[in-house]
């Protein structure tokens, strides 16, 4: 039975597997006994019970009478919402900083370096606290600071211009926009086997993108409120501002911190990508008579983004996990909602399971999507090598 190496390996693994399963069973039993001793029930029946507590920020209608599954959904949506805004802003800042960092002009390059070093070497949680302290120390609404005719900074939050719309229109416009955007992404990633497909697929992508902007815009314009301005800048009424979109200090602090901190890391990644683009590529583009902007937009940036996409994926997953920082300022993300639910319901094990499953699914979905993009935009052959 133990004569060959193969057999020994098989039985050794069988023993390890059996030991692990036995340990897991014992653990579950011990926890079960400990919970029963204190009269706590287990199972997922609590998801249908109403919560009895409110959350500070929600994208969907929610009242304390709603069941637990709904508050978990609120938390998940908030995490995705914060992640989407934070990651997009961080990417934009990162690309800008990366371009500054590779500038031949020493003053410009120094500004990029100073930004990266300053923000990358301070813990994110501290930056969240810092920005929160800044946002709640802004002047009161009566002495509000106005930036660019419409962005109003107050201690009650940041007010952005909003649109005066009939109810339901905003949701419909968002659905049209996101749907066409998704269609464009799918079309862009489809395989292009024939020459015909190589011509009509990019056109279809462009048509979808144009349709997304125009369609959503037209829908919003059609749904405007009669006898009211289309774009509503927040205005002071009594002690606070009305109208427009209000970002609470919590959300504003989180978005600022994640975007600035993420921007520093993504800037370094983008810079490494630019450095990986061969000189020959740039010189060839210049020899073809392309101007500096075209060389950047058509040659350097696309090649750099391709070469950094795997690293960027890791950074995105890392930043998405950083949204759990919401708990330090009281933003109702998935983690805060779950920790409140544990306090209120006592269903510890189930809720921790949901939390971990939620992050596993979110992160793996993000990574899978990025890997799909990476595979589809990868250049065949050896062009990217230097």
């Amino acid at each position, binding site marked *: 039975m133990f004569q060959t190496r193969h057999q020994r390996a098989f039985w*050794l693994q069988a023993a390890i597997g059996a030991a692990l399963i036995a340990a897991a069973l014992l653990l579950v039993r011990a926890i079960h006994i400990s919970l029963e001793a204190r009269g706590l029930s287990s199972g997922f029946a609590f998801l249908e019970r109403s919560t009895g507590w409110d959350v500070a920020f929600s994208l969907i209608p929610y009242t304390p009478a709603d069941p637990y599954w709904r508050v978990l959904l609120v938390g998940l949506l908030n995490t995705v919402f914060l992640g989407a805004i934070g990651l997009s802003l961080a990417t934009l800042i990162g690309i800008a900083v990366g371009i500054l960092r590779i500038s031949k002009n020493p*003053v410009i390059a120094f500004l990029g370096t100073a930004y990266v070093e300053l923000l990358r070497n301070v813990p994110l949680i*501290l930056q969240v606290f810092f920005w929160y302290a800044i946002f709640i120390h802004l002047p009161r609404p009566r002495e509000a600071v106005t930036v660019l005719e419409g962005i109003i900074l107050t201690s009650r939050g940041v007010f952005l211009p909003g649109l005066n719309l009939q109810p339901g229109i905003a949701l419909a416009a968002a659905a049209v926009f996101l749907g066409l955007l998704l269609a464009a992404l799918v079309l862009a990633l489809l395989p292009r086997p024939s020459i015909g497909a190589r011509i009509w697929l990019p056109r279809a992508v462009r048509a979808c993108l144009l349709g997304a902007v125009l369609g959503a815009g037209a829908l919003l314009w059609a749904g405007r409120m009669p006898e009211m301005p289309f774009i509503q800048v927040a205005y002071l009424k009594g002690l606070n501002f009305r109208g427009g979109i209000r970002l609470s200090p919590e959300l504003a602090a989180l978005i600022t911190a994640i975007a600035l901190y993420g921007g520093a890391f993504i800037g370094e990644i983008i810079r490494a990508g630019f450095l990986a683009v061969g000189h020959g590529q740039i010189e060839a583009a210049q020899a073809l008579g392309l101007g500096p902007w075209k060389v950047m937009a058509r040659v350097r940036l696309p090649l750099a983004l391709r070469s950094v996409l795997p690293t960027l994926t890791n950074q995105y997953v890392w930043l998405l996990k950083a949204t759990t920082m919401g708990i330090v300022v009281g933003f109702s993300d998935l983690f805060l909602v779950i920790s409140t639910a544990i306090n209120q319901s006592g269903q510890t094990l189930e809720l921790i399971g949901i939390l971990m499953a939620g992050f596993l699914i979110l992160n793996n979905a993000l990574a899978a999507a990025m890997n799909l993009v990476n595979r589809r935009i990868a250049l065949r052959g050896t062009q990217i090598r230097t």
Partner: protein
Amino acid sequence: MSEVSGDLPLDAPAGRGSAVYDDLKSRFFPTPLSGLATLAGLALAGWILWHALQWALFDAVFTGPPEACREAAGACWAVIHARWRLMFFGLYPHEEHWRSALACLLFLGVIGASCMPRLWQAGRLAVLWIAGFAGFLLLMRGGVLGLSYVPQEKWGGLTLSIFIFVATVLIGMPLAVALALLRRASLPLVARLAGLLIDGIRSLPLITILFALAVVLPILAPGALGSKLTRVILGMALFFAAYQAEIIRSGIQSLPAGQEEAAKALGLHYWRRMAKVILPQAFRRALPPTISQLAIIFMEVAMVMIVGIFDFLASGNAAYGSGEWNFANVEVYVFIALVYFVFVFSLSRYGAYLERRMRVGK
């Protein structure tokens, strides 16, 4: 740039200017557009620097009661002056603060010493760190040699943050080596399980792991795994080990296969092969990413305040949170950020130095 000073004709026209002038011109003003960017960049940097200095130095109040700060336009550093002991030492007994300070310096000394390539041998490093750790515990806990006993719950501030960092690395590094080797094991079940554990931890936010160990575990199994601080350190170590294991694994995989085959041909068995041939080379190759991982984990230690550990950041919150100084939170955060910056920036500079040093050999 000392040549720039003196009576150099900086405004001399091109062509008959000095080499320094040509050099400066080609670097800062190669084309009109780039020259404009230089000027704009300098103006921006100057504007930021001027306002920062005005706030932090010229208009600032450095000592005195909170009332003195309320009238000042600049920063209120008086809060640091009044509360620095709380921030550095937490709730440690006041007359014993020198012990906390000494213990903190001891760890900084150990960290600094391990940066010297002369000590880079597993045996020497182990002796250094175990001796340092024992010295730290002796100083902080006391109870022997005439030092009064201070329970773990009273530890806090910067000393506690550095202690958590050191303990995390001390437990996490061997764990990382074990996980990396397990993931490369020839038994598929073992390799799969190690991979599952590493990837599972890597896709969870640190705070969920800390939360599960520090807050949830006592509810499910009261008394398991020691005090809250111990459980938090174990969670941090697990998190660190999952990331570090991948770094070590990539170091191992970057070695040419001939190394392991040669060691096999010499008749070395698995453990000697790993200890004498593979791991020393893998560590050397993995050194730059390891340093940046250490810098990241040093910053991540600040998260332990969420589960109620009285670390540097939590002490900072306490320093301004008690009534009279509550307007001065920005100053406290800037000060904490400065201390973190000094540590993490020197670590990352050291990593960059190592990277240059290793490239020289190639």
